[in-house]
C-alpha cells in the first residue's frame, strides 16, 4: 500500500508514526492522557462505530500516543499495521484470537520462553484451543503436526533462552503450503536484527517491555501484520473472512483488505479482550525505540565479548550463544539475523545447580531478576524461576536445565561485566 520513499531503519526508529502534534506543534509525541474523544456530530459518531471512518472513540481501542508507537513498530518490521497491547503475553493471545476457535490448534516450536510454554500448554485450553509442541529442527515433524484444525505455526526468532535461531523461511514455507500464517515472536531479536516478514512471516509479536523500550520501565506488547495473507482464500479464518455480526455483517478482509487484521485487532480484539496499552507506557517505549539500533549494536558487541570470555573459563562447560562459532546455529546468523544474534544467552556451570545459585547471588553489576532486554545486564537461573513450572523434559527442550544460567547482556562497559562475572564465578567455587 505504501509506495512512498523507503527510509532507513535509523530514520524510521525516530520519525515513523510521529509527525509534529497537529494541535500544538509539539515535536515529541505528547502523552494523550484521555479516556475518550469528542465526536464532531452524531453522523461522525455513527460512522466511527460502523468502522466507516477511522478516528478516536475510546482509549481501550485507540489513543494517539499508542497509535504513534503502533505505526513506528509496523514501519520497523515492514508490516502493514500494528496493534499494541498491555504485554507480550497479551500480544500472543491477541495474535491468536482472530484465528482460533474451540477445537483449533497451533503448531509451535518447543524452544520458547517458559511463560509462553505455560500459556500455550495450559491456559489456552480454557478457550478450547490447543498447541502441539514440535522440534522445529525437524521440519518433517512440523509438517506432520499440521492438521486440518491447525490455524498457525508459532516460533521465536531467537529462542529464549536456548541460543537457538529458528529457520523462519522454512517454517513460512510449511505454513504457506497449508494456507495458515506463521507467527514469529521477534522480542529478543528486535526488527534491527531480524525482520521476520522478509522471511515469510504473516504476523510478528513482541514484548515491547524488552529491547524496544530498553529501559526496564514498562510492560507492553505488539502484534504486527504483514498485510499479505489472504484470509478469504479458505474457510479457515471466519472471523476475518465472514460477516461480523457486531458490525452489521461487515466482512473484515473484504472491507479492509491488507489492513483487515489490524482493524480486527482494534475493533474486536481490544474492544472485547481489553488488553490495552496505556499512553504513558507507549511514551516510554517510543522514547526507547529512538535509540534501538544504537543499543542493539552495543548489546551484540558486548554479548560476543562476554560469551567468548565465558567459553574459555574452566568452570564453564558450555555457552549457548548463536553468536559464537562453536554454536551449531552460528551459520544462520548471516542469513536470518545479519546484524547479530542478540544479547541473550545461557551458559552451563561445571559444578551444577548449587554453584549456579551461588554465582547469581554473588554478582554485583548484573541484576538478578526476571526480565531481559534492559540497558543494564541481567541474570537469572531459569530452572528455579521463569522455567520453574515446566517439567524436566520441557526445561531441557527450552534450554533451561538446572545447571544453566541465563544472561541478558546490557550496554555497560564489557570489561566491567567480565570482571563482575569473574569475581562471582570465583565466589561460586568457594
Amino acid at each position, binding site marked *: *500500500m*505504501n*509506495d*512512498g*520513499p523507503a*527510509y532507513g531503519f535509523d*530514520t*524510521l526508529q525516530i*520519525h*515513523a*508514526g510521529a*509527525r*509534529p502534534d*497537529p494541535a500544538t*506543534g509539539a*515535536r515529541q509525541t505528547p502523552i494523550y492522557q484521555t479516556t475518550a474523544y469528542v465526536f464532531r456530530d452524531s453522523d461522525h459518531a455513527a*460512522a466511527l462505530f*460502523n468502522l*466507516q*471512518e*477511522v*478516528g*478516536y472513540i475510546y482509549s481501550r481501542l*485507540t489513543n*494517539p500516543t*499508542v*497509535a*504513534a*508507537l*503502533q*505505526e513506528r513498530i*509496523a*514501519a520497523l518490521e515492514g*508490516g*502493514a*499495521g*500494528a*496493534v*499494541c497491547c498491555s504485554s507480550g503475553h497479551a500480544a500472543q493471545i491477541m495474535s491468536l484470537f482472530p484465528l482460533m476457535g474451540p477445537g483449533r490448534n497451533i503448531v509451535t516450536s518447543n524452544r520458547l520462553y517458559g511463560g509462553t510454554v505455560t500459556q500455550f500448554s495450559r491456559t489456552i485450553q480454557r478457550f478450547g484451543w490447543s498447541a502441539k509442541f514440535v522440534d522445529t529442527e525437524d521440519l518433517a515433524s512440523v509438517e506432520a503436526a499440521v492438521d486440518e484444525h491447525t490455524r498457525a505455526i508459532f516460533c521465536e526468532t531467537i529462542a529464549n533462552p536456548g541460543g537457538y535461531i529458528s529457520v523462519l523461511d522454512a517454517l513460512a514455507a510449511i505454513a504457506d503450503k497449508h494456507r495458515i500464517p506463521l507467527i514469529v515472536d521477534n522480542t529478543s531479536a528486535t526488527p534491527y536484527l531480524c525482520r521476520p516478514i522478509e522471511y515469510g512471516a504473516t504476523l510478528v509479536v513482541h514484548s515491547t517491555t524488552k529491547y524496544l523500550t530498553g529501559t526496564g520501565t514498562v510492560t507492553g506488547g505488539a502484534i504486527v501484520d504483514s498485510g499479505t495473507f489472504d484470509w478469504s482464500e479458505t474457510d479457515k479464518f471466519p472471523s476475518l473472512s465472514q460477516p461480523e455480526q457486531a*458490525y*452489521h*455483517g*461487515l466482512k473484515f478482509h*473484504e*472491507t479492509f*483488505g491488507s*489492513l483487515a487484521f*489490524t*482493524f480486527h485487532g*482494534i475493533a474486536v480484539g481490544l474492544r472485547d479482550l481489553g488488553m490495552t496499552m496505556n499512553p504513558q507506557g507507549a511514551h516510554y517505549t517510543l522514547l526507547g525505540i529512538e535509540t534501538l539500533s544504537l543499543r542493539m549494536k552495543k548489546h551484540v558487541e558486548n554479548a560476543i565479548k562476554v560469551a567468548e570470555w565465558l567459553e574459555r573459563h574452566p568452570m564453564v562447560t558450555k555457552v549457548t550463544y548463536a553468536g559464537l562459532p562453536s554454536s551449531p546455529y552460528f551459520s544462520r546468523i548471516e542469513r536470518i539475523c545479519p546484524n547479530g544474534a542478540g544479547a541473550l544467552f545461557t551458559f552451563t556451570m561445571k559444578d551444577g545447580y548449587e554453584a549456579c545459585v551461588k554465582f547469581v547471588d554473588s554478582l554485583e553489576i548484573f541484576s538478578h531478576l526476571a526480565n531481559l532486554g534492559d540497558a543494564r545486564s541481567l541474570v537469572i537461573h531459569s530452572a528455579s524461576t521463569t522455567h520453574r513450572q515446566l517439567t524436566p523434559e520441557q526445561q531441557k527442550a527450552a534450554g533451561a536445565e538446572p545447571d544453566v544460567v541465563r544472561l541478558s547482556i546490557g550496554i555497560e562497559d564489557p570489561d566491567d561485566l567480565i570482571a563482575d562475572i569473574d569475581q562471582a564465578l570465583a565466589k561460586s567455587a568457594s
Partner: protein
Amino acid sequence: MSETYSDRFLMDILEEVTTFACVGVSGNPIRPSYFVARFLSLRGYSIIPVNPNYFGKRLFGSEVRADLGGISVDTQVDVVDIFRRSEEVPSIVEQALDRFPSLKVIWMQVGVANQYAATLARDAGVKVIQNRCPKIEHQRLYGELRMAGINTGIVSSKLQ
C-alpha cells in the same frame, strides 16, 4: 506484478479531481464499495453512482445511472472509479474514454487490474491507478490511518 505510485502522484490526483463516477458501487451500507463512495462524498467529492441494480435510486446525493452512457456528456467526470471484475474493465474504459474527453483518471479498486485497459487510457493521456483504493490512499496520505496504527510510510517534520 503490481504497479507503484508515488505519494506525490496520488496526492496531486486527490487534490485536483472533484467528481468520481463509481462504477459498480453498491447501495448496501456494509459493502466495501459503499464505504468508499460514502467516504469520498464526506470528503467533499461529488459521486455519480453507476450500477444497473440501483438504477433510478439516489445514493450519496445523486441519481444512480445504469451505465456510464447514462451520464450526460456535459458533466465533468474527473475519475472513473471501477468496482468491477478485471475482465470487465476494458469495456468500461473504452466507454469512458469515448464519452468523457476531459477525463483525468481511471482508478481501479483493490483487486482490480487490467493492463490492456491501462495502456489504452494512458495512450489517451489519462492517468491510471490499478489495484488501489482512493479511500485508503486518502486516509493514509492525510493522516486518518495514523489513528489506527497503520504503516502510512509518511515521515515528515512539518505541521499538518
